[in-house]
């Protein structure tokens, strides 16, 4: 059986043309220089490209393939931080911060990757204003993605806690005769107090639950219409 060939464009002039690479705005002269100061290699699916705590020696530029950046959580479970694809760069945070890698980079499929020499890249970034700005934009975009992720994580947590509070209220006060409406009427402030969050967040999440048909709100009355989904949302697992 013939092994699958990895598509590889080793010439930066051809690779960056029309791509969303940060190098796409470089002039031909700079691209030729870039060609000289890089090496190209291919990685098999599952192969480690760089490891957590290793020191960076260059900037990785993905030619083709998909790569995951991951780290291990406190429970040892893998946490994927980001996926990158052809045209993206890898390892610039550690390189620019003069730090070690904080995650592993693993090929998700057979991938072609170029490594640009560290000193050359830093000099190029300092001497080329457009590249420098593209790099700033890349870092800012990544920061925004990370901040959005933090917000969604914290929201998820409050979401779980609101669902949990409804389960506790149901277990304590039971249902009304319809077998769905919680047999207690609490103000949003009182529910927020149980959850340990702001009244605004509680109102927003109850409204979200209402929209996603987990509950039905009628004034202070809360009807649990999908108990199984509410229990799942509470995520009372470790």
């Amino acid at each position, binding site marked *: 059986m013939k092994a699958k060939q990895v598509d590889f464009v080793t010439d930066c002039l051809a690779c960056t043309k029309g791509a969303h690479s940060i190098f796409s705005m470089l002039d031909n002269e700079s691209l030729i220089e870039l060609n000289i100061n890089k090496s190209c290699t291919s990685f098999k699916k599952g192969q480690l490209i760089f490891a957590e705590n290793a020191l960076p020696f260059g900037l990785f530029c993905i030619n083709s393939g998909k790569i995951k950046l991951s780290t291990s959580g406190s*429970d040892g479970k893998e946490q994927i931080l980001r996926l990158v694809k052809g045209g993206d760069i890898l390892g610039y945070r550690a390189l620019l911060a003069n730090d070690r890698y904080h995650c592993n980079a693993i090929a998700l499929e057979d991938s072609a990757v170029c490594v640009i020499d560290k000193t050359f890249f830093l000099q190029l970034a300092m001497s080329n204003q457009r590249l420098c700005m593209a790099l700033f934009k890349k870092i800012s975009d990544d920061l925004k993605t990370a901040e959005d992720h933090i917000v969604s994580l914290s929201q998820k947590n409050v979401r779980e*806690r609101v669902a949990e509070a409804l*389960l*506790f209220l*149901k277990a*304590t006060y*039971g249902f009304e005769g319809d077998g769905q409406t919680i047999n207690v009427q609490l103000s949003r402030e009182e529910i927020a107090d*149980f959850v*340990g969050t702001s009244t605004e967040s509680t109102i927003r999440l109850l409204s979200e639950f209402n929209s996603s048909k987990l509950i039905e709100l009628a004034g202070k009355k809360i009807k649990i219409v999908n108990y199984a989904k509410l229990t799942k949302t509470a995520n009372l697992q*470790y």
Partner: protein
Amino acid sequence: MCAHSSSANDIVSKISQKLYPFIVDQFRELDEYNEINPPSNKTSLLNELVQTIKHEFESLRNYETKLVFPSVQELFDTKNNPNFKSTVNVQELQQLTQKKEEVIRGLLKDLQREAASLHLIKGHPVYLIINVFTDFFFIEKEKWHRMLNSWNSGCACFAKANCKNKAKATHSK
């Protein structure tokens, strides 16, 4: 007073008035320790785990003191009153609280592992927190759940209209 409701009151009083304030004090001591010895990057995971445990504990304490304990106590105290109709589902409340306790147990294991990997000194406040949970919290909660299990399994003591189990003797099924 029936032996069951009597022991419920004893356990609740012990947990809510002695154990929980003691745990709160341990967390406060750790906060004070951290003010003197600011956490470093090295201890970031340890501190994150402590904060998560603290948060889970406060959440459990909140539900228990506001909902679980009062409703179970009321249920036990008024079980012989035919006019009293309780809405509380002891089994469901027990399952919910047990799940939250399991979350704390899991986090404590992680904390213990992290504390060991950082070679924290024996008397470090983090170990005091671990110890108060393992030596007191889970033991008291086990007593509480044992009593609730008796209720859930339809212990004769609860079923009898005129409960004779007034002494401190153990209940009969």
